[in-house]
């Protein structure tokens, strides 16, 4: 409790979304991907979007990343438009698949954003060393992505997103394709990274335990049209481990998320 109130004082709004709508024009009929979305993300938050597939959670993340343009409404990222934020490289994005370039080895995949941003060779080397050790992949520098397991590839992808030290990490179901054991381990590691780097994380998932375990704010969304139903805040200690999954508080939070999802589903149908 103490910790959260003290951090609240230093918190500032890093992403501010109001009245956001996004409609895709298709051949048959327009698809309302996002409808009247209002959301504030504070600096240092670990915020998850959860909802059924097709509810627009990925679209919302892509709007924040300036990979999609909203139809109407306002959105600011670090006080700028998403476009400016992208040009300033203020976030690292982790995709559903690792999206590593097969002709570059692990190290030089991590160098890619650094090359783009104009870091010196020396700095590139130093940063890739640092972030590879942070994700526990020291010694794999010269391996090629296709020589690694899926979990390792996604770790490289996370190291790459962190490498240029952006303020935010945007993650789009990064562990969705991994087996549960690997996923659990990466969840714990991600939590540790969040704690160590003090970054703001926006995380998309469709797994309730993952959302509850990782986040301090869970944004529950419904589909058709995609909108926010509920925002659930949790208050677990930052250095939590998987043991909390057995606690009544965890189960209660999961239950609330589940109920909100059900409610959204009933509304929609």
């Amino acid at each position, binding site marked *: 409790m103490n910790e959260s109130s003290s951090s609240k004082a230093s918190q500032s709004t890093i992403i501010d979304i109001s009245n956001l709508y996004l409609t895709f024009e298709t051949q048959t009929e327009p698809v309302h991907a996002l409808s009247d979305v209002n959301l504030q993300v504070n600096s240092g938050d670990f915020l998850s979007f959860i909802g059924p597939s097709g509810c627009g959670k990925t679209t919302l993340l892509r709007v924040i990343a300036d990979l999609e343009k909203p139809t109407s409404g306002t959105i600011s990222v670090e006080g700028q438009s998403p476009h400016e934020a*992208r040009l*300033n*490289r203020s*976030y690292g*994005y982790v995709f559903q698949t690792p999206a590593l*370039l097969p002709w570059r080895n692990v190290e030089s995949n991590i160098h890619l954003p650094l090359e*783009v941003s104009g870091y010196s060779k020396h700095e590139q080397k130093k940063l890739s060393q640092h972030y590879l050790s942070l994700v526990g992949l020291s010694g794999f520098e010269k391996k090629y992505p296709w020589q690694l397991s899926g979990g390792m590839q996604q770790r490289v992808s996370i190291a790459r997103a962190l490498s240029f030290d952006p303020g935010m990490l945007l993650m789009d179901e990064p562990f969705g394709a991994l087996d549960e054991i690997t996923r659990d381990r990466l969840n714990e590691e991600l939590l540790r990274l969040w704690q160590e780097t003090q970054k703001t994380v926006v995380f998309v998932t469709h797994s309730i335990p993952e959302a509850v375990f990782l986040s301090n704010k869970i944004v529950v969304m419904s589909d058709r049209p995609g909108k926010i139903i509920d925002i659930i805040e949790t208050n677990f200690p930052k250095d939590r481990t998987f043991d909390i999954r057995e606690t009544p508080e965890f189960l209660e939070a999961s239950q609330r998320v589940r109920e909100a999802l059900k409610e959204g589903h009933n509304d929609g149908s």
Partner: protein
Amino acid sequence: MNFLTIFRFRSLRGLLCLVFSVLTFISLQLNEINDHALNPFMVIIIAAVSLALFVNRQQGIFLLSICFAALFYGVWSVLSLIHSLNADTIIGLDVWLFVSALWFLTWHNLVQLSAIKTKDKFMELFLTVVIPLLFGSWIFFLWEVITIGMSVPQVLLPSPSLIWQVFDGAGATLLADFNQTFVRSAIPGFIMGSGAGFIIAIAADKTPFLQRGLIPIGNFFSAIPVVGIAPIMIMWFGFDWQSKAAVVAIMTFFPMLVNTLVGLNETDKIDRDLLHTYATNYWRELLSLRLPNAMPFILNALKINSTLAMIGAIVAEFFGTPIVGMGFRISAEVGRMNIDMVWATIAIAALTGSIFYGVFALLERKLTFWHPSMRKS
């Protein structure tokens, strides 16, 4: 069925080899003894080896070496026999039976070699070179035996040994032809055509409109018999190498254009999104993502073009050329019935083509090692 299962664990090829060598021996005994006959002793050796193959269940390296020794001995004696014949003598049934026996022995050896599984890189390389080489040598051997043994007229098909002699006698002419056709026509044309195709593809890539139009048109032009433009090019650029280089340039242009365009479009959306999040500019994206992704396509085009360049340069020479060049040589010597010279030219063309192709195949392995089709399983 039951009868066949007996042989399942034994070498059928060994049995066939045995049968044919025994038949050879019998036919040798039936014939009158003359100076130009097979050595019966050697036939017995081959028969013994094949018996060993047939009886023995374990096909070890020792037996394989013996097989090879016997095979080389047999081939060598057949070759020396046919070369000792008079020009018009036709070899008898015994030799054909013996060659058949040797074929089954070769086949056995090939199968044995192919079955070797090895993790050793050097050994693997050795096998991938030696197995096809062995097969190829057998084809040349058969060619030699047929052409000499059956006294095939030289105008129809000269023997390999005769073709080989041409390199001695007419080396300078062949070199001049090579220079004219490959060095002065094929290479510049290849570079111009592939280079232009690549540059236009990059230029068109920026305008999706051009791209969508160029791919079908390029496909259409790739499908047309471009050799047909040779007479036109000769009219425009004269008889010398310039017109041939132009034909080659046009032939190689479209495969490169289409392949590069398709390759540049092959990128995954997710990878483009990734670079988008880094706020990369167009050229950086081209260099870091789309060109590397197009590499397999570009190298494929280079491989196709390497064979097209040779063909284009030679065929273009049929329509008119100064009195030098491989295409000229082929058409002129066909007219004079100097078929051995023609084959020597063909051999050079094939060898050059193989090496030219091989260079790009190697380059492909080096540059696109990461592509799923190139990865070692």
